[in-house]
């Protein structure tokens, strides 16, 4: 394992920090989930939580800085929309990690198949 040789992209690191911070809060994760399911107005979101509209605005701003959502105006409403590109990045990484787990679990099963006798310790 030669971790020192990993090349790091400082921009990606800063972006990851923002995303991590944004997702580290239950309310913000919840707001993001709702935004993914469809655009939500800030006032509609405020009705869903026992916190002030200002507090919701602050949460949305944190999500926005992390590029997870964007805010657009529609008439008097402020709409919160999810940013599929950041989520797509997460999805892509999960796809790759899935390969590791499929590999692991294939070996896991091979182990069960190799030693059927142990399945019956009695």
């Amino acid at each position, binding site marked *: 394992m030669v971790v020192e040789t990993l090349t790091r992209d400082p921009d*990606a690191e800063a972006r990851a920090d923002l995303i991590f911070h944004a997702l580290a809060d239950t309310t913000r994760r919840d707001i993001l989930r709702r935004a993914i399911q469809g655009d939500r107005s800030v006032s509609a979101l405020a009705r869903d939580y026992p916190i002030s509209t200002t507090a919701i605005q602050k949460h949305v701003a944190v999500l926005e800085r992390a590029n997870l959502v964007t805010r657009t105006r529609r008439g008097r409403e402020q709409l919160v929309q999810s940013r599929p590109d950041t989520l797509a990045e997460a999805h892509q990484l999960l796809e790759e990690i899935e*390969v590791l787990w499929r590999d692991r679990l294939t070996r896991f099963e091979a*182990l069960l198949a190799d030693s059927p006798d142990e399945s019956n310790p009695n």
Partner: protein
Amino acid sequence: MPITNVEKNPDDLMLRATCEFDAPVERVWQVWADPRQLEQWWGPPGVTATVVDHDLTEGARVTYYMTDPEHGEFHGWWHILAVDPPHTLEFRDGFAYEGGEINEDLPTTLTEVALTSPAEGKTVMTVTATFTSLESMEQLLEMGAEEGMVGALGQIDDVLTGVATN
């Protein structure tokens, strides 16, 4: 393939794999609970894993190292958060320096295992891995590539294309 479903939740940085095995729950549990079996599947193929400490009780640790001819040794740990044999196991896993001291700069993963028996002699296992950040996922993949985990893709393809008769 034992895997019946893989659920990915990019919002929560979570991956959940569900598998079905033709083996009783107790037998499947052994694959986690017996260090000699664990070392045969946890690490990448072609790399010798050695489990040093293995105590599946709450608050205890599992420690292991892997020897890769090209990159030398790397050390890892599990910190057991919850356990209920032979049904549930929850741990945080990460990496350590050679002396065993936890390396805080490397990513950790929360792993939750649940075993249930839908019928006698059968086990459904779900493994849920939750990552801390996009960056940590990238880092894990970079490390995986170095350790040859990603290089094992070909082997998986072999299994997928019919070699798997289990």
